[in-house]
Structures are given as C-alpha cells and as structure tokens.
C-alpha cells in the first residue's frame, strides 16, 4: 500500500479518535440544519404569493441554494479547527521525525494528511446534504442544482483544507495554526469587499476574482464553470505546494 494512504488512514483515525471531530460534526450538522429550517420558514411565508406568479423560483432556488450559501460560511469557520493540529501537533509531539525518517517524501506526507482531512469533510458534507434531501419526502427538488451546489461546497472545503494544512505547516502551535487559518480564509472570502464599491478601479476586478465567494456563487446557482473549477484546483495545488515547500525548507534551513 502506498504510504500516502497509510498516512491518510492514520490522519483519519486520529481525527475520529479525538472528541474534536465528533463535536465538529455535531455542531456543524446542527447549524446547517438550523440555517436550512429558517430558509424553509421563509419559503412557507412566501409560498402563497409565489403561487400567483408564473415561472416563479422553486424550492431549490429559494431554500436549498441560500441555505448551502450559509453552510459555506460554517465550513469556512470550522475548517481551521480541523486542520490546525495536523502538522503542528505532529511537529510538537516529535512524531514528524517518524514520518521524515521513514522512506517517505514530504509530498507524500502532505498528500496523505490532505486526503485524510478531505475524507472528513466529505463525510461532513454528506451529513449536511441530508437536510435538503429530506425535502424529497414532501416534494420534488432540482437534483442537478443540488448536486452542483454540493460540488461547489466540496471544492470550497477542499481549498479550505489545503490552506489550513499550509498554515499548520508553518507553526508547531495548533492555536496559532487555527487563528492563522481563520485569517487566511476570511481574507480570501472578503477580499472582494475592497473591490465592490467603485467596481471601476482596475484592481477591483482582480480582487473580486480572487474571492472564494465569487466562485462558490456559480455552483450554488447550478452553474458548473470551468473557470471556477480551475480556480479551486489552482488554489488547492498552490497551498499544498507551499506546505511541501515549507516541510522541505525546515529540513534544509536552520
């Protein structure tokens, strides 16, 4: 078996052996359920008026998409908590020496850790998806739109995890890794705030383009865009590459 999978398996088990992962699963499932419920309330309020309009937006547009948009923020908030301990704690406990002394490259270490964490987020998203899917009991959904939205959230989480892993590679203190991760992700989320007011400034477009929010939005509307896919792909590769670089630099530098 490839060492990447061994490291991923170890990471996955370590997550579920700590209460942190279970608490995170419980809290974020509860929060997303709440967000979803409040969205359903709004829909029930609007429903009588919508009935009269021809071509009115359906349940998926009015309930699922906005709820998933809010869930993205929940994911952003919990991602650094999940990723904070991976490399930081490994260094702190001296177990990074075990991985480094083994015939395993820094790239394999980072990829293994990444896949283990990604597995956790996949489980989390599957739990979150149960709420919108429950609407199927009472009516019909635009499943394509839901799938696109979930794909967007999954890609966003994959980027959050890569960024969190990178920050965790910088320090040996999990708390520092968590706060640094928050900072980095929030910055990526709100970077377009600087751009919106004028909109005309040359830099504005670039900043808006860099924002994670912009790229998640398309998926929530049911649009799977090559540009958005590339954005997340590049983000993941960039952060993982930086994490590998950081591990190598610690071996070489002093």
């Amino acid at each position, binding site marked *: 078996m490839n060492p990447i999978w061994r490291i991923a398996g170890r990471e996955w088990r370590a997550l579920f*052996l700590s209460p942190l992962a279970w608490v995170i699963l419980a809290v974020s499932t509860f929060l997303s359920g709440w967000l979803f419920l409040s969205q359903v309330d709004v829909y029930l309020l609007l429903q009588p008026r919508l009935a009269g309009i021809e071509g009115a937006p359906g349940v998926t547009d009015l309930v699922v998409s906005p709820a998933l948009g809010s869930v993205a923020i929940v994911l952003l908030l919990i991602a650094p908590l999940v990723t904070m301990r991976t490399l930081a704690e490994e260094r702190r406990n001296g177990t990074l020496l075990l991985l480094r002394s083994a015939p395993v490259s820094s790239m394999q270490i980072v990829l293994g850790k990444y896949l283990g964490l990604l597995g956790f987020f996949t489980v989390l998203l599957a739990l979150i998806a149960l709420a919108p899917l429950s609407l199927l009991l009472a009516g019909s959904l635009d499943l394509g739109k839901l799938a696109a939205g979930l794909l967007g959230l999954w890609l966003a989480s994959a980027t959050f995890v890569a960024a969190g892993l990178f920050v965790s590679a910088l320090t040996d203190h999990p708390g520092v890794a968590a706060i640094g991760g928050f900072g980095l992700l929030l910055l990526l989320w709100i970077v377009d705030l600087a751009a919106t007011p004028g909109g005309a400034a040359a830099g504005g477009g670039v900043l808006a383009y860099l924002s994670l929010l912009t790229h998640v939005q398309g998926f929530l509307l049911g649009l799977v865009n090559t540009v958005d896919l590339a954005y997340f792909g590049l983000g993941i590769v960039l952060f993982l590459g930086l994490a590998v670089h950081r591990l190598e630099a610690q071996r070489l530098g002093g």
Partner: protein
Amino acid sequence: MSASIPTNDHVLIQAARLGRRFGATWAVRDVSFTLARGDILGFLGPNGAGKSTTMQMLTGNLAPSEGGVKIAGIDLRENPKAAKAHVGYLPEIPPLYRDAVVDEYLRFCAGLHGVPGRRINDAVGLAKRRCGLEDVGRRLIGNLSKGFQQRVGIAQAIVHEPAVIILDEPTVGLDPIQIIEIRELIAELGRDHGVIVSTHILPEVQALCNRVQIIRRGELVFSARMDELERGSHARLTVRFASPADAGELAALAGVASVDGDGTDWLLSVNGDADSLAGEVAELAAERGWGLRELRPERASLEQLFVDLIVNEVARP
C-alpha cells in the same frame, strides 16, 4: 525493501566530513566515521555537543550543510527513500501517537517503512517479542508507563529490520531494571545490525558498546574500539610493596610511561599492554625482595578519558 544490504560490503554507514550550520554557528563540523555490521557505537558527548544534530543528519531529518552520508552504500542525498529504508531511528523523544494502540501504531510504522502488507503482522509480532511488548498490544500508548513507551519507541525503530539502528539516549528516564533490559536488547541487536547509541552516561557505553566516539562542540575528538581502549595507553597500574622500591628501576621497565609515588605506594601509567607489564613488575619485586602486596591494573577508565577530553577542555578558556 528492508534489510537487503550488499553482502560483500559490511560498511553500513559512511559519514564523510559532515557539517551542519545554524546561522553563523556550526553545530557539527567535519565529522567523519564509518559503521560496520556488528558495531555498537557509543556516541558520547556533553549535552549540546551536537549528538542529536548528527543523528538527525544520519536519518535524513536535517540536510547537512557540508559533506554527505551513505547508508548501505546508498547516498542519502541522491536517493533518500532507498537509503532511509535501511535506517531505524529512535529520537530523543519517542515519536509516539498517544491516541493509538500499540499494535496499530507498530503496524503503521512497519507499513510506512515499506514492509509489504502480508509481512506486517509477522514483523510487528517479532518487534513486540524483542521489546517485551506482547502483553500491551491492545493498550493505548498514552496510558503506558514511560518505560513501556520507550520500548514502543525502540520497537518502532526495529520493526522493519533495518540494517542500521540509531538510538538517541534510549535509556533516559528508565528504572534500573528497565535499563538492563534495554541494554540486553541493544546488545542482541548489535549482533546482526549496526547500532549507534547516543548517550551522556559513561557506564552505559562501557557496558554496551564495542566502539566509542566522543564529540565535543560539534567535532569528533576521540574515536576508538573499546578493546583497544582497555589495553591501550590510558591504562594504569597501582602497585604497593612491603618495603620501599626504587623509582628508577620501575621506570626502566618496558611499557612504563610514567611513575608516580614514593616508598611503597606507586602508580604506573602504562604505555602498551598493562597485563604483561603487571607480570614484569611482579618479577622485579620478587628479584629485589620488595614484597609485593598489591598489583592492580586499572582498565582504561572512559570516565578519566572523558574528563580529560571534555571537562579539562571546557575549563580552559
């Protein structure tokens, strides 16, 4: 992948002019040595002399600023994965996952070091037997005593049957019984592996090693085989006679480096074989009728050597 060492070549480690700089200061400089199968090399030095830095370079955890390491003939820089497969390493702090069960942890380590899946259970079983861990396989590492944790750390270093085993202060924090057990284990490992043990406990080196190296402020200042050391130039002979002896006649014996004492009590520094000199002293005493009362060769005291090399040097500005 484990233990396929070139059979015609028993040199397991070749360190050539290893150096490591942190900023402007050299933590280790110009360290060269070799390690062969069957060697148990004691790596001695005061705290902060560069022992751990050297070990981290040997295990690929730190890149040397200068020089290079070959493990079983494979260059660590050019082919790190192949070279590292031959090394088992116990760092100063055992690299344990406290949330894992012993069996699970050792299986992970074996797999990580490239033991093929079907052989993992056997490898883990053997490592557990050697380290006396059979009864704690299902226990959580974090709940084990310090002694057992240390043993799990050693098991981790030998689970893939590496050619070279590097142990950084393996007996720190253990009780006397555990220390004896770990020493026995290391002696056993030394039979068909090459072992490097870093320590600052002198008796440990004497009890355990067949080679010794002393490192001081990042430089190797002494290197010898223990058996050479024992009959070498550092031995001394304590002699006591019934009647006063003549210093000139004692000094004239072959192999006497210096004579110290007066009347009946003498201390001879030996330059050569202490045992044959002892015979000659006895003969001389019988001839002259000095009445030999005590004749005690003092085996090279590593402590003496260490003090000479380290303490005296440190005291000097």
